[in-house]
């Protein structure tokens, strides 16, 4: 079986580890925050999603570069 493709994608997979850990930490903190204080959920939610979006930006810049650089 032959597969054609770019080895960039392996690099991208490695680069996505960082944001993956970051997003995991953000939602871990969000879940434990809500578990301790359920009434704070609505306030924590927008902060958690904002943090998720910012951490995710790294992964997104990575995938853009993985396609652009060849």
């Amino acid at each position, binding site marked *: *079986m*032959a*597969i*054609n*493709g*770019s080895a960039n994608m392996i690099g991208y997979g490695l680069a996505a580890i960082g944001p993956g850990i970051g997003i995991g930490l953000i939602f871990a903190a969000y879940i434990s925050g809500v578990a301790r204080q359920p009434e704070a959920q*609505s*306030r924590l939610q*927008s902060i958690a*999603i*904002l943090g*998720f*979006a910012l951490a*995710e*930006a790294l992964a*997104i*810049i990575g*995938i*853009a570069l993985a*396609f652009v650089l060849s």
Partner: protein
Amino acid sequence: MSSTMTMVLAATGIRAEGGGGAFETPGPGNFDLPGFFEIAGTPVTKPMFQLVLAGVIVFGFFWLASRRATLVPSRLQFAGESAYGMVRNSVGRDIIGSQDYLRYTPYLFTLFFFLLLNNFFSSVPGIQFPTFSRASMAYALAGLSWVIYNGVGIRKHGLIGYLKLQTVPSGVSPVMYPLLVPLEFFSNILVRPVTLALRLFANMFAGHLLLILFATGGLYLIQNEGIVGLVAGPIAWLLMIAISFLELLVQFLQAYVFVLLNAMYIQGALADEH
């Protein structure tokens, strides 16, 4: 590969790209759709129609929902009002603050449902193409947001006051200004619209690419890899269905995040100096 399978696939007219040879991995080229027709040398493509369609649907739905507003709402009016209330309260009031949010709610609300519909087009049978997997469309929306949040800030603080608000961090000794001011300018004025657009574009692009990969990869396995492929190919297609549901979540989340960040930028531009 069994001959019945070949016949079934031939009857449906499905062929993997380069079937029989090496597997062609899907790439950005899969997103260059041919135009339906040309206007002044510019091809008119499917995503362009989707933009117009989304605008018409969003306008039509909320026009119908608010046309005969009564004290005891009809079902349609209730749906329209709860959708409006969600954006107004959870994005507008919670982020921008109860003083100014009503002025910016119409923009945020329109933006949210326009984006949501365009993202959902990725999963609508017969359309199945996310409009914002074309980067230029996302850049246009982010450019509009850039003009709005900077305009709001300049109108409130004046050009110099606004630049000072965005680039001079408070509580830092002036010795650090030569280092921090260019960095803050770069991050708050120049890079913000780019990350805003890229986040939306890359999520839609990557999600759709993943679906193409599982669809064509499963077909390639079934056609070319004998008994192993006949087992593995359908598994790939089952995974494709599972990923489609994940994509529905991502589509909603990206529309929400885009609008949330817009609200945060407007709030940052309106904030008083501290």
